[in-house]
């Protein structure tokens, strides 16, 4: 780094810590004041009726938009700062030569914490395999990464509490571990596009590990929050609008009939609806909350959410570059079956 080590470096560091503290404190203040502001604005300052359908929907829309935006930005900022300590290259070195089983467990956990964008799924797949990470272990990593989403954990925690967030985390990990192990046992190497194994890569490639200061990490967090916001605000508002409509207008009986606890096919339907839907954790959460308020059981809702975030059409198309159709279909089938199983399991346990 070109910064001269002197008193000024120490001052900069102190200023960075102060700035970080100020950012976190103002975030918390906004989050805390959110419902107070809207309750006052809509029902005291404006002549809206708190108990009317319109009033309820309008409040849900504004309050939820701000709340989810704040959570999205806050969680992304903090997680990006923490993740700047981990790189995908280190994760690969850590997973190299690991056996099936323990390797799958480590890969799924690494998938949760390693910074990774789904647009890099293909280079990561090639990079892992050509440096000797077993295919089942690699797939555990690739399944866990989108399935267990830090924003979803944060949102579930604030909306439904600690228990539901933990259930989501552990069932997601279990699906990633078991699906990777099953695919590994099936010797799916023969269904991988040949160029992947033809690639003789220097796995020892070690880039000079970047040395980040606290200010660098904060900048990375801010950049990432902004990038995420730009990428998903549309999905978020569509999700919140649908949530608001369900919240205010959809008859409770309709959902009870089609997806309620008494319909044995509810989980299956939820997953089938979820796969082609392309959204993300933040966009789907307002819908989940509105459906929960209409009496849908948590297992069905978790299954729906997982299907939306883990199995999306664009990602499947991307993976087609390296996986033959047979493996791709098996992959979707096994992950889908895992999600359906989790849905039925928690509908049974949580009732």
């Amino acid at each position, binding site marked *: 780094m*070109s910064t001269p080590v002197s008193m000024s470096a120490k001052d900069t560091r102190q200023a960075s810590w102060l700035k970080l503290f100020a950012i976190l404190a103002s975030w918390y203040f906004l989050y805390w004041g959110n419902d107070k502001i809207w309750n006052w604005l809509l029902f005291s300052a404006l002549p809206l009726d708190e108990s009317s359908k319109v009033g309820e929907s309008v409040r849900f829309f504004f309050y939820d938009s701000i709340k989810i935006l704040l959570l999205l930005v806050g969680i992304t900022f903090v997680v990006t700062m923490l993740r700047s300590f981990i*790189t*995908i*290259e280190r994760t*690969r070195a850590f997973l190299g030569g690991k056996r099936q089983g323990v390797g799958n467990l480590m890969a799924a956990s690494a998938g949760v914490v390693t*910074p*990774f*964008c789904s*647009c*890099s799924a*293909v*280079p*990561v797949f*090639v*990079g*892992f395999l*050509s440096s000797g990470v077993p295919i089942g272990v690699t797939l555990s990593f690739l399944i866990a990464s989108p399935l267990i989403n830090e924003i979803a954990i944060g949102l579930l925690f604030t909306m439904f509490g600690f228990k539901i967030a933990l259930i989501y985390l552990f069932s997601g990990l279990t699906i990633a571990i078991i699906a990777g192990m099953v695919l590994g046992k099936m010797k799916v190497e023969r269904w991988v596009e040949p*160029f992947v194994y*033809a*690639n*003789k*890569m*220097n*796995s020892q*490639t070690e*880039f000079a590990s970047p040395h980040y200061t606290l200010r660098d990490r904060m*900048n*990375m967090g801010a950049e990432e929050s902004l990038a995420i916001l730009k990428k998903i605000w549309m999905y978020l508002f569509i999700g919140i609008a649908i949530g608001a409509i369900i919240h205010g207008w959809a008859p409770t009986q309709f959902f009870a009939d089609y997806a309620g606890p008494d319909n044995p096919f509810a989980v299956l339907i939820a997953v089938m609806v979820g796969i082609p839907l392309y959204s993300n954790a933040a966009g789907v959460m307002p819908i989940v909350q509105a459906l929960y308020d209409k009496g849908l059981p948590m297992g069905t809702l978790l299954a729906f959410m997982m299907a939306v975030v883990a199995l999306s059409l664009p990602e499947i198309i991307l993976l087609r*570059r*390296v996986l033959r159709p047979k493996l791709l279909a098996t992959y979707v089938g096994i992950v889908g079956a895992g999600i359906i199983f989790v849905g039925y399991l928690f509908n049974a346990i949580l009732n």
Partner: protein
Amino acid sequence: MEIKVLGPGCKNCVTLDRIAHEVVRELGISATFEKVEDYAAIASYGVMSTPALVVNGNVVLSGRVPTPRHLKEILESI
């Protein structure tokens, strides 16, 4: 200087390519540019997170779009 921008053509890769051009022009270095979009070729550099920047055969940056200032520091030190 021989500069290669590695990436399958996503938005970040386009941004990195643009910043690299800008910085090179600003520093007044003579450089050749090449875009590497093929997955097998990208992987042969050992790169797993795109976009990445290769200068004279060495990977100098991977996984994020640098600020122009940061990239300037990198190119000046080569």
